[in-house]
């Protein structure tokens, strides 16, 4: 593999890993705070899947980079500006409806993305994706069910999830913005065509929101962008401070 492709692949794997690491960490914040016991367990189970998937992608990123960095090095010893996760997944948990809306918007994207990535010409990447997509199918079914229940539930649950979708919508535009990393890897059959993922995403999201008696937010509104280049909302830095402090204070800690 030439240097340009290797660098692009490293960046791409960081995106895949960081999306799942940051979302997994957010979900883990629900541990012990879920609205009911079953949901507490469900959200932490999904957190575990996300962090496991992140570990696999970041481990591969470290080996592609070939500078001896492990998944832990990448997770705990990078600054916010070096994280390449979407702004969507770093948004704070808010109430349960907010967490579900964020999860659903990501799950639809992740499921379709991984479904394609399991056919990537890069064998190790394809293997991790083929495993993860089976887990994502469960995540998506879980979040979609809750979108329907909250949207078509009580007046209050309807209002709460509608405002969550309205608030989060501005972070959905950048999900499908392809840059030169995407283009180069797509040419080589390693990554996927984000345009085709976008049309599936729009269809699935509109379908679920409509079924849940919710309004699909206006697609023409202002969209934030830049997270794939390391630009984030203020929330990521705060989250990382908490996530990274133990390892940074005690770099050799084992338990």
């Amino acid at each position, binding site marked *: 593999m030439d240097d340009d492709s290797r660098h692009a692949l490293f960046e791409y794997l960081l995106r895949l890993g960081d999306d799942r690491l940051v979302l997994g960490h957010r979900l883990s914040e629900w541990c012990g705070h879920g609205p009911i016991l079953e949901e507490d367990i469900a959200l932490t*189970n999904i957190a*575990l899947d996300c962090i496991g998937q992140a570990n696999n992608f970041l481990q591969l990123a470290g080996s592609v980079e070939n500078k001896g960095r492990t998944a832990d090095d990448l997770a705990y010893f990078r600054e916010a500006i070096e994280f390449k996760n979407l702004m969507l997944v770093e948004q704070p948990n808010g109430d349960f409806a907010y967490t579900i809306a964020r999860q659903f918007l990501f799950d639809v994207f992740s499921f379709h993305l991984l479904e394609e990535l399991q056919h990537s010409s890069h064998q190790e990447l394809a293997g991790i994706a*083929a495993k993860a997509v089976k887990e994502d199918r469960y995540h998506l079914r879980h979040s979609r069910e809750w979108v329907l229940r909250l949207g078509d539930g009580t007046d209050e649950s309807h209002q709460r999830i509608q405002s969550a979708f309205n608030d989060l919508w501005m972070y959905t535009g950048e999900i499908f913005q392809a840059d030169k990393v995407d283009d180069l890897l797509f040419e080589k059959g390693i990554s996927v065509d984000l345009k085709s993922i976008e049309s599936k995403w729009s269809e699935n999201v509109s379908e679920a929101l409509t079924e849940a008696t919710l309004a699909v937010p206006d697609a023409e509104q202002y969209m934030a962008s830049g997270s794939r280049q390391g630009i984030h909302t203020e929330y990521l830095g705060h989250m990382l401070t908490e996530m990274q402090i133990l390892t940074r204070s005690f770099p050799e800690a084992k338990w």
Partner: protein
Amino acid sequence: MPPTKEEIFQFLTEVNDPEIPVLSIVEMGIVREVELQDDSVRVVITPTYSGCPAMKVIEEEIVSALQKKGFENVTTRTVFSPSWTTDWLSEETKLKLKEYGIAPPGRASEQDSSGTLREIICPFCDSNKTELRSEFGSTACKSLHYCNNCQQPFEHFKCI
């Protein structure tokens, strides 16, 4: 006589899954291959789920089980492909799960694309009058159900 792969597989049937102690890691399909070279043994394993927290314990137990059998140089290697599926559980293994009180998985290959759950049969009274309580149970690989016939909660090994 150097050991054969079959012997090593046999030794590994003594290592149980820490979260489902009635099954060995061989029955679970976690052990994919055994590589022998001179006096070293390398056991190739695959995780059930990407984030399965038991993998670290399983790796340690493989090493210690084989060391007890006199192998000094034991390592493990993790692979993701082909990805683990409940279809690798034999009928005999599924029966063990049921006897342990966990409803066994159906065949993943028979699921429709949305992964719709088939009817889950209660492992205690064999009734089909059961309901799903949560898709996520005490571990990622299990879901929570309730039997309306014998009024017992039970876990189902998810089909994946």
